[in-house]
């Protein structure tokens, strides 16, 4: 296990209760993700891929074990502390974009910046930069309903990177897109990883999507198996 890992899971156990039955998702799971990595997480439905992202993102809690992100233990943090952790360290990209339909692209991208002390003019500059990175500088004033699925996901990526988080957590980011658009989005993620050094953890069912990552982890029966799909 690397000592310089950006993300480190140690002995993480997580389960849920269904009726009278306790079902384990992870049992003593270990994982290390170094800074600048692009990890695809694959696995069958119910294997705990999204739960892993939720734990890394601080929106779900472990039953046991430790999660350290950027040197900070996040298991056991209070809700307020977790909110601060997410605001400072995590960018989420969701399968269905999760944009606010009543806000423009620029307003959506600005949302994470409202959690920072940046002034309005500074926020505007950051928003313009983020939209330019995803190739949507000319769509700032458009509402989500006026954009295609691919464009909406680009806006969601811009929202995820605008506050310069340490890690991007992408949950099936191309699951709602056609092949060509999916490739565009994955290209954007790859660029963010290669050129801007963003650490990305991406959950996907799609082997073609996983090939854009530097490595792929298969999650099954609560354990990881590493495979090389890029070759």
């Amino acid at each position, binding site marked *: 296990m690397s000592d310089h890992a950006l993300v480190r899971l140690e002995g993480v156990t997580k389960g849920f209760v269904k009726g009278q039955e306790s079902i384990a998702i992870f049992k003593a799971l270990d994982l290390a993700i170094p800074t600048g990595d692009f990890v695809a997480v694959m696995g069958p439905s119910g294997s705990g891929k999204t739960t892993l992202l*939720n734990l890394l993102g601080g929106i779900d809690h472990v039953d046991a074990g430790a999660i350290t992100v950027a040197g900070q233990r996040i298991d056991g943090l209070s809700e307020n502390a977790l909110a*601060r952790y*997410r605001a400072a360290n995590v960018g989420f990209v969701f399968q269905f974009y999760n944009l606010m339909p009543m806000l423009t692209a620029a307003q959506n991208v600005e949302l994470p910046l409202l*959690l920072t002390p940046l002034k309005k003019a500074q926020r505007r500059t950051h928003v313009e930069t983020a939209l330019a990175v995803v190739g949507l500088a000319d769509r700032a004033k458009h509402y989500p309903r006026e954009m295609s699925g691919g464009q909406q996901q680009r806006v969601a990526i811009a929202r995820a990177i605008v506050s310069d988080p340490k890690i991007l957590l992408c949950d099936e980011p191309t699951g709602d897109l056609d092949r060509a658009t999916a490739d565009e989005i994955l290209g954007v993620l790859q660029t963010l990883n290669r050129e801007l050094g963003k650490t990305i953890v991406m959950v996907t069912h799609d082997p073609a999507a996983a090939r854009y990552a530097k490595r792929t982890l298969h999650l099954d029966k609560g354990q990881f198996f590493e495979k090389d799909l890029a070759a």
Partner: protein
Amino acid sequence: MRPFLLQVAAVTLINLKSIPQRFWLSLSTVVAVALVVMVLLTFLAMSYGFQKTLSGTGAADVAIALRGGAAAEINSAVTRDQVRLIEEGPGIDRGADGRPLTSAELYLVVDGVKRSTGTKANLPLRGVGRDGANVRKGITIQAGRMFAPGSNEVVVGKSLASEFAGFDLGQTVKLGTSQWTVVGVFTADGGVFESEIWADAPAVQSLFKRENYFQTVRARLESPAALASLKQYVESDPRLKLDVKTEQDFYAEQSGQTTDLIQKLGWPLAIAMAFGALAGALNTMYSSVAARAVEIATLRAIGFGGTPAFIGTLVESLLLSVIGGIIGAVATWLIFDGFTTSTLGASFTQVVFSFHLSPALVLQGVGLALVVGLVGGLFPAIRAARQPIVAGLAG
């Protein structure tokens, strides 16, 4: 602090901008609150209008003497001797001729017919002394002239003339067993006297066979402070078993029972309706939180706290309720403010008054709307703040 306020502003903006997505549900809440406020304000405007009419009647420097224990003029009796003793009392102002400014009066109930409904109603006929108009302030003959002493002539208050049939200038009207001619219409600064028929006291005594007694004596005081000496004078004379008070206090007491009754009807009815509106508000806001579950969860995943979600939901609820409250207040004002009607006063005669919606009443109505909005939004707001992010993201 600034990021927190920005979060609150952003969540509130998102909530408010999403209202059109729940337009009909939101509208139903607004309408329900508007109806609650309308009902409340209608009663309060009625109560306030009645109170204003009666309290606007009394003057602090006019004393009224009634039989001891009499709560209303109609229950009172004052003998001619007692009138004479009062006229000799201290602190009473005098006219240009040096005579004390007093008016011994009779107060009788006569029949009238309401113009709007054609139904019979009790009207007050007041026999006033020759200084009856001078003792009071603000009595002005608006049309015609004052009745001639000793004649079968009456002057009528402006409100009575407009609300009841047969009192137009020049008309002859049967009061009791005799015919009277309307020779004038008077105003009294909007006070209760505008709901009365006035005639010469001796003529009323004669034609209604009440020769030897009156019901009240009014006296213009040198100053409001002079009441104390007049009261002391009355209390110290065993022949004067009378209560003396200012006209202002007398009419405040008269209005009290009726306004209390109206308010005691109005508030419970409005509160009962408010529970209905509250159910509507709760339904709307729970639906709002459910409809925005993904948005709320997304914002919280980004790093927004639960408190902005709580405040944003509460603000939405309060805003819908305040809009309802304002609509209710405006509707009440448009429909009822200035609406003239009449009701039985303390002397079992009709008092004509206008509904009056004051800014203070509007505040009460909007305050009730805010309470509905606050309670209706509180529990959904708690749900919004405490909803697990993972569950919200799952939709």
